[in-house]
């Protein structure tokens, strides 16, 4: 039975009607046309659909939309301030940390959640933080470097990730 759910998407309140068997990923992509979370394995194995739910990075494919009632959802669209890229995004561009780009939105959000919780992560901690986001192109070297670069920049600017 369809029911109405209301949640905050990137700071904006959204209401949609959903069937119980629809995932948050489907609602974002198909009903709200926010296609930055990628539909890939749908088993929680790849991280391409990563979003931030109430401050934690999670797989949108493993969250039923009906359970998001009243919660906060952030996608990669929340990162940039208008046309000004978030330091994480800028570091990914500057360091060539994206190749095909399919994993990139998820990786950025995993990195965002990591830096929110730990603004000064070690190299190993960044590797742990990105471990749920599979990437076939980059070999992770440059994404890890980009996250460390952005973390340093955010610390220097004295703002939270």
């Amino acid at each position, binding site marked *: 039975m369809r029911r109405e759910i209301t949640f905050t998407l990137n700071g904006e309140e959204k209401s949609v009607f959903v069937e119980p068997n629809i995932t948050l990923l489907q609602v974002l992509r198909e009903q709200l046309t926010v296609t930055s979370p990628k539909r890939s394995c749908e088993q929680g194995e790849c991280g391409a659909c990563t979003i931030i739910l109430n401050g934690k990075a999670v*797989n949108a*494919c493993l969250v*039923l939309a009906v359970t998001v009632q009243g919660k906060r959802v952030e996608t990669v669209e929340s990162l940039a301030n208008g046309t000004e890229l978030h330091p994480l995004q800028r570091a990914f561009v500057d360091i060539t940390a994206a190749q095909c780009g399919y994993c990139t939105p998820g990786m950025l959000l995993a990195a965002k959640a990591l830096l929110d919780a730990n603004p000064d992560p070690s190299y190993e901690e960044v590797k742990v933080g990105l471990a749920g986001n599979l990437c076939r192109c*980059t070999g992770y070297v440059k994404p890890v470097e980009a996250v460390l670069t952005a973390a340093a920049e955010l610390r220097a600017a004295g703002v939270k990730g």
Partner: protein
Amino acid sequence: MRNFEYLAPAGVDEAIRTLAEHGSDAIVLAGGTDVLVWMNRREIAPKYVVYIGDLQELGQIREEAGELRIGALVTQAELAESPVVAKKALALAIAARNCAGPIVRNLATIGGNLGTATPAGDLVLACMALGGKVRLKGPKGERLLPLEEFLVGPQATVLAPDELILEIVLPLPSGVTGSGFQKLGRRKAMTISTASAAASVVLSADGSTFEKVIVALGSLGPTVIHSDEFERALTGKPATLEEINNWRHLAGGDACPSPRARRASAWYRCEVAAVLAARAVEDALAAAKGLDLSAHRAASKKRGRGIAGAIYSLTPPGFPNPCAVNLQMREDGSAVLQIGVVEIGQGANTVMTQMAAEALAIPYENVTVHTNDTGTVPYDFGTVSSRGTFVAGNAIIRASLQVKEVLYEAAAVALKGHPDNFYLCAGFVCDKYDTEKRMPIGEAAKFAHFVLKKLPIGTAFFYPKSSAADQNSQGEPIAAFYYHATVADVEVDVETGVADVVDLYAVVDCGKAINPRLVDAQVEGGAIQAIGWALREDAQPGLTCASGPAEGYNPDFMPVDLESYPIATSMDLPMLHPGLVEVFEPEGPFGAKPAGEISANSGAPAVFNAIYKAVGVRLFDMPATPEKILRALQDKAESQPATV
């Protein structure tokens, strides 16, 4: 997934009433990391889904009355980060840190790990080693069961359809205690345990004797099981590493040979169960007594360095490889390139833009590339065979010659010079011999349009040498060769067969690197992929293979999911040292050669050579799984007479 009725009770008692009403037609949903996967795959299709994920009363970790009580909805991430869990139940904290990856850990709950009851469950394993009990609640009240009674088989528990898991209760024995957890998977994160073990110990007050030892084994029996014989053998014995080693052969007990053979053979799982069980007890002992095990653990690691090189050719002899471009200089001094070489993330658009800008001596920002759309670009057969930079660059250079011819003629007419004396310099058409004679490229293009009535357009075609060899095996079959070398430092654990690439140096000769950072990216990505082929990735041809499928393998070509085809995670990244050797290639555009596929070519042989150097076994069959390495090590030991 099939549709269902969604029910979200507001509290535990309401949840139990809801479950009592719908019985086995209902399923409880919390973190969803298993339930939603099963529903997505249509392995289950419940009529009712009872969502309890927001019941905060089940999300607490409390230490009281000599017990650690962990609510069913505590997530793996919370367990991994909890100071009290790390202090009082270290095995559980380490188990949680080894579950899946950080994103799944934010969803997956301890109650789910218990309820799912897979023998590979990491949290349930740690809880059993810590003497855990599970508190259930149903319409008739609560019951507290030891895990040994709760678990009855693979994915089977005594939980009634109308019962809910409330919490897991871990006793906190006083005295000298410690616990440990060990897991082997196909990679370092996002992996289900191939084999696992957890242990806890209580030592005598002076730390000299094992008073109580619990050892639990994962992925070996129908449920997580106790290593009864190992526990009995150690109890009352001196609390030393030697003693643990003396009895570890008993670890598998009745479970070996194991009838279950997922992710590795029964033989391998029993072999490593003993190793992991011993290490888990060692960890527990070390935690209890404050020992440093690093030197002890290093003894089982052997290190070797392997080197390999690769040669690659642009395309096979006789293979057609045409590339066509349109290149136009516009009257505003910008250029438009139409080309069918496809950008797939490797940076083709960047490199083609750079080459067009270089060929026309205009800023990079002034080049627009149209590509990837067969409706708007000339024919090309795509991004294959590492051809993009080489064929596109050559075609762009050829097209640019035609553009220049028109621009030089325009400049010659407009400035009263000779076309042969003009060249392009930083956005201008300039006379070699008269610095006064120069005009902006855009002006020259406009002059060509309006006065010369000629278009400054180049339409060029490039077809690299790739003739089939003649009857004397002569000809020009290959336009360019390029080279790659890898040096791999690999550490092999001789007890488990696990090989780990510690350092990797990968160097490509790509001619002149048009964009060194993009070449680095190719070298890095190729290196990690090569390590994956060498150690983990196993696509089975299955039934399409003439020799038939290996026993137990999936009959489809590819494994069914990204856990069983374990490409590297960030945790599997070694210290990687990429390098370029820029040898100018006369046939290449601006001296460039390809750098794509070859970057994945010499990694695997280098890793195999390093394994040989480290432990003296020569493997030929990729991937060198821990099981293959351990088998080869044992075969070698058996074939060599023991030296005294």
